[in-house]
């Protein structure tokens, strides 16, 4: 199951909203202090949809990621599913 965790604090709530609007995600109910945003193969989120300032945007996956970053710049975040080990294919 691929996705990312979002801490339940005001500055990250717009990420959940943007993911919900993208139509490619399933937002799970809050569990503990986090919400899990699930995606199937890939998901793309635009910063303009989150209204996040850059300093927050660049830390928006700090809740934890079950997936891989395919693209991450100041405008756009693209995540894809992965089976690769955390430390890379030559790791572990």
């Amino acid at each position: 199951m691929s996705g990312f965790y979002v801490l339940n604090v005001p500055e990250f709530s717009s990420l959940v909203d943007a993911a919900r609007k993208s139509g490619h995600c399933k937002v799970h109910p809050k569990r503990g202090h986090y919400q899990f945003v699930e995606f199937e193969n890939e998901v793309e989120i635009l910063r303009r949809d989150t209204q996040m300032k850059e300093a927050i945007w660049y830390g928006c996956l700090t809740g934890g990621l079950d997936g891989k970053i395919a693209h991450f710049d100041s405008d756009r975040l693209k995540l894809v599913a992965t089976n690769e080990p955390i430390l890379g294919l030559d790791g572990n």
Partner: protein
Amino acid sequence: MIKPLELHPKLHGVDHTARPTWKLRETVHFYRDILGLPLVHCISAKGWGREKGKHADFLHFFFDSGNESTIAFFYYVGTEQPPELAVPKGYMAMANHTAWRVTSEPESHGVNVSQLVQHEVIESIYFRDPNWYPLEITRSLRDVGEPDAVDAAATIEAAMELEACGRWTDIEQLWRNKVKFVQASQAQAQENTLA
């Protein structure tokens, strides 16, 4: 082994931070006249009793930075700044900084400052003093609470595990490694709810 809380020292905020200066007049002008921090105390002493050559005579002076805290400087009479105490260039050296709290949006007051940067729980402006020491003025945007502390613990545990493996190179590895700690915190929260 983590000691029980009552065995740790009980701290009550910052009394003062201190650093050396070789620019007495500029430092006083900047902190007292431009930032408006009152000069509240100054020690002038003979080398703290040590032989000349082992410790210079000095001034140690303090500016009031609010909430019973001060920012302090040492001025070592007749000395030159050792090269190793020059503030290094680059962002890494800026990590060593003082951040003061204000209660309204930080303003420049005529000082050359950075843009206002909004972080998760604070917003800040950044600037340097005449010694090139980095300073920050920041406003809290919200109080931190239990979610922040739980999340901080998960981040740091995940990071220490990666640090120990010796092959940690990017933040994506941390975000991925953190998942198991986040899931553990969720399971714990669920147990607490059921208990």
